[in-house]
């Protein structure tokens, strides 16, 4: 029977290929979006985890970290909680077209640069120690730590000095590159670490979040105490950071689900059309099979297997396309801001989508084929 099923594809190569490509594109789209979505989520978790902090504390009501505010008084309150070993404050901004003075590459549009504000005396800055590929950690407010991708984009090296910000902040006319770091997160590599007091000149006195260091046995208690003492704030273990944003992430998941449905419908219509044409063209052939003793159920099975086979082949191709497409997107269009995670469940999602498309798309043609009466089918011209 397998020989019969496979040989059908060779007879209708063009149509099979078109159908297969239709399913492949649908699956590729889903694999790509899922990989990027998971990649962004994982990279954020990974970023928080790499801080080495026990807890990340931020504004409970903020829909996004960009809107989170933690005041200096609240930082002091957290510091006063028993078991808190250390607190690192962090703020964040993004600047457009940094000023490089005579270091600026001719005609370069330098684009958006994320700026992470850190206090150089606090523990959080030490995470970059092991990530340095050149220079040293900064120690003065007039020093910067630059991500590898940003350094390459801005064409700057350790020791270079330039204004960086468009306006003079804290009376600092020029900043010196103290070191260049490289992490696994491309969007972090595209950024610059500046002194938090400098960033405060752009964002105001509040911080976006604070990293809290405790002994492991104290973490749960400190977390509870932070939230009960300052109900406005939320404390999360660094590794569970994105759980707080489940609601927002749920929107992305719903969007992906919706896209899966649309992609599925497109795929089902492709398989349906292909299999309907195939059944129609093979009416006499199917009638012959019935005359030779094949049951309607066997004919149904053959058509479903054929449709599912095309769809799964399309799905496998789509997984490959999805991976390649995502890599191309990341390499040429995302400018390093996107990250992809290729998780087994993403490919399983693509495979199941293809399987479902194949089954649903071939079911109706298969039922039509199985209902054919051999005598009538053999009369069919």
């Amino acid at each position: 029977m397998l020989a019969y099923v496979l040989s059908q594809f060779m007879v209708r190569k063009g149509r099979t290929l078109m159908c297969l490509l239709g399913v492949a594109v649908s699956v590729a789209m889903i694999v790509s979006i899922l990989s990027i979505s998971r990649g962004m989520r994982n990279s954020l978790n990974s970023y928080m985890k790499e801080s080495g902090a026990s807890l990340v504390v931020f504004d409970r009501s903020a829909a996004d970290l960009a809107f989170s505010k933690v005041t200096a008084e609240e930082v002091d309150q957290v510091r006063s909680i028993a078991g808190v070993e250390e607190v690192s404050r962090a703020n964040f901004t993004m600047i457009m077209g940094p000023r490089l003075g005579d270091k600026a590459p001719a005609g370069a549009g330098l684009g958006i640069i994320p700026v992470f504000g850190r206090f150089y005396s606090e523990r959080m800055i030490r995470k970059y120690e092991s990530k340095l590929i050149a220079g040293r950690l900064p120690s003065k407010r007039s020093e910067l730590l630059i991500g590898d991708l940003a350094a390459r984009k801005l064409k700057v090296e350790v020791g270079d000095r330039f204004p960086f910000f468009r306006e003079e902040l804290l009376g600092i006319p020029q900043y010196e590159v103290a070191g260049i770091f490289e992490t696994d997160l491309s969007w972090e590599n595209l950024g610059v670490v500046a002194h938090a007091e400098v960033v405060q000149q752009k964002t105001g006195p509040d911080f976006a979040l604070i990293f809290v260091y405790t002994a492991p046995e104290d973490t749960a208690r400190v977390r509870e105490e932070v939230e009960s003492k300052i109900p406005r704030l939320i404390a999360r273990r660094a590794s569970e950071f994105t759980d707080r944003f489940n609601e927002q992430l749920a929107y992305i998941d719903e969007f992906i689900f919706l896209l899966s449905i649309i992609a599925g419908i497109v795929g089902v219509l492709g398989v349906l059309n292909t299999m309907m044409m195939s059944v129609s063209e093979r009416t006499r052939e199917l009638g012959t099979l019935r005359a030779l003793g094949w049951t309607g159920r066997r004919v149904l099975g053959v058509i479903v297997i054929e449709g599912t086979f095309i769809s799964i082949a399309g799905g496998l191709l789509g997984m490959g396309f999805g991976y390649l497409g995502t890599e191309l997107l990341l390499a040429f269009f995302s400018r390093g801001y996107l990250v992809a995670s290729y998780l087994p469940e993403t490919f399983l999602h693509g495979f199941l989508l293809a399987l479902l498309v194949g089954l649903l798309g071939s079911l109706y043609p298969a039922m039509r084929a199985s209902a054919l009466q051999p005598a009538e089918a053999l009369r069919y011209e």
Partner: protein
Amino acid sequence: MNEPLVRVKKANKTFEEGQVVALDEVSLEIEAGSFVAITGPSGSGKTTLLNIVGAMDVPDSGEVFIDGELVASGRELDSIRARKIGFVFQMHNLIPVLTARQNVEIPMLPRPLTSKERRARALQLLDEVKLKRRAESSVLGLSGGERQRVAIARALANSPPLLLADEPTGNLDSRTGDEVMGLLHEQRERVGATLILVTHNEELCRGADQHIRMQDGKISS
């Protein structure tokens, strides 16, 4: 007395909501191992009778028994066709995308045989019809006569007691037609099957144990 292999009792069949009468109170009995020829002009009901005897259709009224089994409806028809009947069609109706051997294996697929057993049986049957050397050839590359020989091998795949042939030489030149008929009779005798032949060609009816002439849905003689 032995039970006839085929027994049709007062079978009626109409098409187009009763406007076209294909079979009108047809009754007949066919003995096992015999050669039966059915002739008649176009539209006389030959093919409808063959379809009913071949369990491809059921009469509107009346009864049909094949090898003692009542031909009713549903899955029983599939099962009767698979076990009891071998078809040879005018247009051979081979599956064009398959090889000669694979075509012969098609009726054996519903049976509980291993692929090795199916293959061996198909090759043996192709050997019987002198086509073993073309077993792995696509049927598209075979001549009309060769294709009909493959169709005969396919009809014999499940060793059915009843062989039905609908104008098996209709698309062949006379010399090839004679060869195919000779082979059909040879194989029928070898396996002891009953052959029911529907044809316009009176020549092919020579030697028939029973000659049924159809006219306007009735057996005229």
